[in-house]
């Protein structure tokens, strides 16, 4: 207070005429006093946490999560910013925000494959010490693993996603066939049904040159016992016989007429529409398709079964794990509040509400068998098996490059521009160069740092 009075006096002394200046001085003194009172009041204004997500994902948040969280935490506001539908554009927006150094987002809503990159770039707060083993035990282990990078935890899963096999229960039953257990079964059943003219096409999958093809291929690769990149040893398995057999299997589905030639240009929605119109017996897709396939106007309503992705004979298969989770931006000015928000958002009540509201796949294991959820979605206990068998795409920092390499060569093999062996050899060589380069620069950096110290 004295300080402000001194400033006011100083300002008065600068004034030319003493009378007007004294009056002005009082005005200034009053204003400064008002400011002094206002500052603490303003600082008690709620903290606003910002996060960006793609627009179609926003409704469940504004419907329930934001209201409930703000009611429980009066000092914190949650501001959800609507981003583009295309998730790679969303990734670009987060990336540019981080590159500018001072991210406007406190919470980071991440696709599972971004986590290693964002963590390696040093954009995310390390949350390892904030969550005990006990806290994490309730979640499906693969969803938690998807949030780790080099054994540190950066992301907590809010929503799961896993590739799975949809099949036409009615057609199989009519033909007296059991649901498939292997890739060979899919081929055999497809041919039988096609010969009986029960259905036009056998098996639909996503073969366009894009991220979805990499996810689809991970499952076939796992089903043949192969691997892409081992995150611990950084070994590359794309030119191994198992991987080549995996590509051959996909090519054969086209050449034998089980899959339409157009699968090499299809994304999820193309295949889903195809299957929904009753034109195919099997479909590889994500859980979102279930509610659309069973909508009232769907020709295949009630005729569809699901199962985890199957393997080749004698192997154990796995579904490609996707999903979303939350991390905290390193430059956030409110990390404490952000952590509170994450604890609420991954909590059982919040997740249950969103699952019921939007049909998302939970990351908490108990929710798959929750009475209220099973009453609404009877297939969730089965879905748990799918998620449990989840395979991660390689959690390495250079995943984006690795995926681009695979997509390019896989697309070339699937469209007959290269043989399977040739393409996979090329993909493996390029991927090896990539991970080796990553290892080398890291080594150089370490030696340089140790020299500096």
């Amino acid at each position, binding site marked *: 207070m004295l300080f402000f009075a001194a400033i006011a006096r100083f300002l008065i002394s600068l004034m030319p005429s003493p009378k007007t200046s004294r009056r002005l001085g009082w005005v200034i003194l009053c204003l400064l006093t008002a400011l002094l009172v206002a500052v603490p009041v303003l600082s008690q204004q709620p903290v606003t946490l910002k996060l960006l997500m793609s627009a179609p994902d926003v409704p469940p948040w504004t419907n329930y999560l934001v209201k409930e969280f703000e009611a429980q935490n009066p000092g914190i506001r949650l501001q959800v910013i609507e981003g583009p539908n295309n998730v790679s554009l969303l990734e670009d927006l987060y990336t540019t925000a981080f590159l500018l150094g001072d991210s406007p987002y406190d919470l980071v809503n991440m696709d599972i494959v971004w986590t290693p990159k964002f963590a390696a770039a040093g954009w995310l707060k390390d949350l390892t010490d904030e969550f005990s083993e006990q806290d994490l035990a309730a979640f499906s282990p693969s969803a938690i693993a998807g949030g780790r990078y080099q054994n540190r935890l950066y992301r907590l899963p809010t929503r799961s996603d896993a590739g799975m096999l949809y099949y036409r229960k009615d057609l199989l039953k009519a033909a007296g066939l059991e649901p498939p257990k292997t890739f060979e079964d899919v081929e055999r059943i497809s041919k039988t049904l096609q010969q009986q003219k029960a259905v036009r096409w056998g098996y639909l999958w996503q073969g366009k040159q894009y991220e979805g093809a990499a996810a689809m291929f991970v499952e076939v690769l796992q089903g043949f016992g192969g691997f892409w990149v081992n995150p611990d040893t950084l070994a590359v398995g794309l030119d191994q016989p198992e991987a080549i057999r995996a590509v051959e299997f996909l090519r054969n589905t086209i050449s034998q007429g089980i899959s339409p030639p157009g699968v090499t240009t299809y994304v999820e929605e193309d295949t889903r529409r195809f299957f929904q119109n009753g034109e195919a017996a099997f479909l590889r897709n994500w859980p979102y398709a279930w509610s659309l396939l069973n909508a009232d106007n769907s020709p295949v309503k009630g005729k569809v079964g699901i199962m985890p992705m199957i393997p080749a004979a004698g192997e154990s298969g796995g579904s490609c794990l996707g999903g979303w989770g939350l991390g905290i931006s390193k430059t956030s000015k409110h990390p404490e509040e952000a952590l509170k928000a994450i604890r609420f958002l991954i909590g059982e009540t919040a997740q249950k509400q969103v699952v019921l509201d939007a049909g998302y796949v939970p990351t908490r294991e108990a929710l798959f068998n929750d009475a209220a959820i099973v009453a609404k979605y009877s297939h969730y206990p089965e879905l748990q098996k799918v998620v449990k068998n989840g395979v991660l795409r390689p959690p390495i920092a250079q995943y984006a490059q690795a995926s681009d390499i695979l997509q390019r060569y896989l697309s070339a093999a699937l*469209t007959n*521009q290269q043989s399977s062996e040739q393409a996979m050899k090329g993909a493996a060589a390029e991927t090896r160069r990539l991970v080796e380069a*990553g290892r080398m620069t890291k080594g150089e950096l370490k030696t340089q740092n140790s020299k500096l110290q």
Partner: protein
Amino acid sequence: MTKPSTMRSQEQRTGLYLILPALVLLLLVFAYPIGRSLWLGFFAQNLGTELKPVFVGFSNYVRIFGDGHFWQTFGITVRFTVLSVLLEVIFGMGVALVLNQTFRGRNVVRAIALLPWALPTALIALGWTWIFNDQYGIANDILLRLNLVQVGINWLGEPFTATLALIVADVWKTTPFVSILLLAGLQTIPADLYEAHSLEGASPWQSFWTITLPLLVPQIVVATLFRFAQAFGIFDLVQVMTGGGPGGSTEVVALYIYANAMRYLDFGYASALIVVTFLLLVIAIWLGSWLIRRSRSISE
């Protein structure tokens, strides 16, 4: 010192002051980014280094020479650039000749002819994507109605047809730019040259080859150079129409550099790629203008 020479040096100094703002501006917007890219190209700044710059000398540049993917995108870009610029100059010349004639409503037609150039590329790319859609596109509809094909062509799904579709879209979009430049050139050619030539019994076709084309060479060169540099850096059209697919067959250099910088966060390498592309472009333009100059001096 004699008086005229001081005057000249004073004039020179004034001249220097006058161009100084332009020079500073050029340095800021042109030399600085290129110089900075050159500098960054000597560092590894990527996820392996936690985005901190680590000096690596020429290793980024060495890596480019062994980077088959880069040279593939480079080849695709050269093919796209040469074909589309060639077609644009030919069509642009045709349009310019038509617009140079006097007819009713010429001004309106000139304005309309310029329209594609004025539209935002990303939007017209969306339009062309629909035109070339295999199920609902107009391109297939016309071909099917004319019985030229029996099954709709999967335009954007095959390497050859996807490239073709991109070239068609680019030619449609930028021909007006070429034709406006050439039209300006046509208007500087005096009409009496043609009169004298036709009095000597020359046909319009002969006049075109002996008067129009030689006198238009400066404008053709300028248009070609402008278009060459622009087409080489094409990004938006390809990103929207094909995203570089299928099988990477339409992936141009700009797309590859963008992926390296924004998706792979490999800034050192992306900078080196920019520098190499820039140098190759400068060499190409220099070579092109040298060839043109030489052919002109021979013909004269």
